[in-house]
């Protein structure tokens, strides 16, 4: 399928082009956005009606070759990523657009290839069916992401980038080790073939094989959790995301953790569903809950806008891990497991759109004020009403109030929690929502306070439109949730439909 090829190769080719061709980065990026949007608009209706589409690269079937599969999960994330990238690339033109008269700065030269490279790696991570190929995608992603953090070359952002790199390498190492163990045991890393082996099914496996499988899964999970910034591996996230320039922060916070999360979903729901135990499900859920509370409390204590938004990502990622106890569990949960699974994906999508919108808002305000300290935000509501509304609307999605995509997510997850009798997760969802309202209220109220003496630098209107559109997309995800819901259902792994066990 040409469209699948386009999804993966267009950003990568564009990244190469942007390196080669001077001062045309923004136009090359624009072209690749158009190409990817066309590819997605071909693929989405096709997959929604006919089911997942496979691309067997070079005609080599697994285990020899690598398969890319466009299923509902992959396309939903690729679609969200395309929206975010489009908005970010448009916003970045002001910051990194080349001017014909002056010499090109590092940012102007490096931003476009890095962002496009990251995008290509993301799409590979969403589409690929091979655990080693996924490792390569993750590494590409990490390299591009770390470079984006360091792009301004400021002292503190270099330190943040280094810390990010350390964590990410550790994560990669763990993942790779796990993948190697799995390969040694089963001779393949293709998700479909692994699934066919019913790994963990007690009848076939000997004791030592089972132990090595569990170790492999544990290592891979730990590695992916580090890259997703799950509590307690979140320490790298806030300085990196807050230290990067706003358009880069938007990509880093909205998209990058989602890639490793999608791989986690594929690992546990598609490749190794037989290995799960109630204790494992509860542990992952518990870490998610801890992330929700700890991230929120940290966000409440920050006095810089970008740090608040970054710690909010730590908290919001926590919700994603509730998928394990909610979509797993005993048989009573089964009719609701599908709802929980889809709800978590809605949460990831809604968070991506809203979080990118928020970082772009922060970018606008940094231009207007000069820094992102909360105390400097007085009077911004009157000075930049459009950005204010974007921030407010994105906040509605993050707090999961209706009618946003976040609300759809929360409703589905809450229903699953009550129906399966696991009210503890419902408590996490509700308190987490209230905490997020609390930490987002602080910048909101500050911007709403009147300050007649405040003067702000003018911000171009074009820079203010992108976050508003992203925030509205997060609302539309809730208002028009039917189409994305049924798209996500296509090719949904059997494990999610029946519960993990």
């Amino acid at each position, binding site marked *: 399928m040409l469209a699948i090829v386009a999804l993966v190769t267009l950003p990568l080719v564009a990244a190469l082009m942007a390196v080669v061709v001077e001062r045309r980065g923004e136009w090359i990026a624009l072209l690749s956005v158009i190409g990817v949007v066309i590819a997605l608009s071909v693929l989405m209706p096709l997959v929604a009606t006919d089911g997942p589409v496979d691309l067997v690269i070079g005609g080599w079937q697994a285990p020899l070759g690598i398969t890319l599969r466009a299923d509902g999960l992959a396309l939903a994330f690729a679609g969200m990523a395309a929206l975010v990238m489009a908005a970010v690339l448009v916003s970045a033109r002001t910051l990194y657009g080349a001017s014909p008269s002056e010499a090109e700065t590092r940012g102007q030269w490096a931003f476009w290839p890095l962002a496009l490279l990251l995008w290509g790696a993301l799409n590979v991570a969403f589409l690929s069916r091979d655990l080693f190929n996924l490792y390569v995608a993750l590494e590409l992603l990490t390299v591009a992401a770390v470079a984006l953090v360091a792009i301004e070359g400021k002292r503190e952002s270099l330190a943040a980038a280094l810390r990010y790199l350390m964590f990410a390498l550790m994560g990669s190492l763990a993942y790779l080790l796990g993948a190697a163990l799995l390969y040694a045991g089963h001779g393949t890393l293709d998700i479909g073939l692994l699934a066919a082996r019913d790994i963990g099914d007690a009848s076939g496996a000997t004791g030592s094989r089972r132990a090595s499988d569990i170790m492999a899964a544990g290592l891979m999970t730990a590695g992916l959790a580090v890259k997703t910034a799950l509590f307690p591996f979140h320490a790298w996230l806030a300085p990196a995301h807050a230290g990067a320039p706003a358009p880069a922060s938007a990509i880093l916070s909205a998209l990058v953790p989602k890639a490793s999360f999608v791989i986690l979903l594929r690992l546990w729901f598609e490749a190794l569903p037989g290995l799960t135990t109630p204790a494992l499900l509860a542990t992952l859920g518990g870490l998610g809950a801890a992330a929700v509370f700890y991230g929120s409390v940290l966000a409440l204590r920050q006095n810089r806008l970008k740090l608040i938004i970054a710690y909010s990502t730590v908290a919001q990622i926590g919700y994603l891990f509730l998928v394990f106890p909610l979509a797993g569990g005993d048989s009573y949960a089964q009719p609701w497991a599908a709802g929980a699974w889809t709800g978590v994906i809605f949460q990831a999508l809604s968070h991506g759109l809203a979080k990118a919108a928020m970082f772009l808002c922060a970018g606008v305000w940094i231009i207007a004020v000069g820094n992102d300290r909360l105390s400097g935000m007085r009077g911004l509501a009157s000075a930049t009403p459009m950005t204010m509304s974007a921030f407010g609307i994105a906040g509605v999605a993050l707090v999961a109030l*209706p009618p946003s995509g976040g609300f*759809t997510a929360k409703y589905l997850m809450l229903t699953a929690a009550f129906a399966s009798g696991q009210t503890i997760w419902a408590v996490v969802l*509700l308190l987490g929502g209230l905490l997020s309202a609390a930490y987002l209220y602080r910048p909101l109220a500050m911007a709403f306070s009147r300050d007649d003496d405040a003067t702000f630098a003018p911000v171009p209107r074009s820079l203010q439109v992108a976050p508003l559109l992203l925030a509205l997309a997060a609302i539309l995800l809730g208002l028009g949730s039917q189409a994305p819901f049924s798209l996500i259902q296509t090719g949904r792994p059997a494990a999610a439909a029946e519960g993990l066990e």
Partner: protein
Amino acid sequence: MTALLPVLILLTSLIPAAITFFLAQDSKRLRIALNLGGAVLKLGLIVFMLAEVAQGTVHETRLEFAPGLYLLLRVDALSLLFVSLSAFLWLLTTVYAIAYLRDGPELSRFFGFFSLCVAATTGIALSGTLISFFIFFELLTLSTWPLVVHKQNAKSIAAGRSYLSYALPSGAMLLVAIVWLESAVGPVEFARPVDFGPLDRTSQQVIFALFIAGLGAKAALIPLHGWLPAAMAAPAPVSALLHAVAVVKAGAFGVMRVVLDVYGLERMTDLGLALPLSVLAALTILWGSARALQQDEIKKRLAFSTVSQVSYIILGIALASPFAVIGGLAHLVHQGLMKITLFFCAGIFDERADIRRIDQLDGIGAHMPWTSVCFSLGAIGMIGLPPTAGFVTKIYLGIGAVQADALWVLAVLGASTLLNAAYFLPMLYRIWFLQPTAATTEGAKPNERPLGLIAPAVITAFASIAVGLLAASAFSPLALATQIAERQYLR
């Protein structure tokens, strides 16, 4: 047409809201035309719908989201009662707000959220399922916050903070109640009886308590009423709207829906929930009145009076006897008319004569006769003297209390009436019988213009008398309330 009409009624406020946000501050005419046009159109559509529903047409619109999550707009007698009240008062409040705010700052933002707020209230009235109700209920919270903090000074920001810190947690409790209930019994539609089979008695009671806690913050039940007196930092039209049409009414309306259409009066009584609810309402009535007596700012006194008066509605429902229910339902409209009159007048006193405290009211009757007459009519209604709307409510509640064998309620009603008199009559005395002092006229020379400011107050004041005088006619709020209550007892 039957599926379209509820949507059209919503759109009459949603579309003006969407456009108004993008208008420049100086496109005053377009803004006024949009808002008034929407309000008039909405009222027209509702009158048309009243006629249709009288012929037995069912209006229903369904919008699917994710499985189990759908928006249902459905028109029944209870929604008609609320939606006609809100549409009528909205038109008047819009006229008043235009005159009151004139050329103030951020008008496009204000009127955008103002219209959004109507849309949310209309949605609440027309919702046919619990989850639809919840969606509009939260939308109401979100759209009123910018109105409360409209002045953007420290006081109004603090008021907004207080509002959210009550509204958001209670919204969360409401969501828990809904999801808990629906995960056991399936989606709840108001038009369908709910099968409570899968839930044990304790769960049913806990869910009911969660419902009341979730709705109680907006309905200003103690101890969740703290935000309401603080919210009077908002501009007068917003206070009028908060107290009479939108927020507290949405809470009271929600309690009605839960009691009448989800649990049903009989189940509520069987579960032993009627008595606690009526005691809570009675305590709120007394506490609100007692606190009102202590205030020396006009708007604050009115705010505590609202705390007290809205609980008449809930008391009526909780007593669960026919007359009490009718009284409670009718008071939804009656209180709205009377309280909006009082807030309109308080706004005029403030805006035109710089009168904010009660001791500044001395002798103002001579200077501002229209405002003073309207204020007095509203106050007399609140006390419950015949022939006002308040009198009708209190008579019905009293008879209902006897029917329900709850004679203690008569004592509550009596005490509350005395308290009402104790905090309103001194104000009337000052207005009409004392000589003007320097404090009265220290502001600019008092006047009552423009017409947009005083006309809405006059209309609502006379409406509040009319619904009392004409309570026996076929189209009075009381008649509609009787119709709703009859369905409860006949089913």
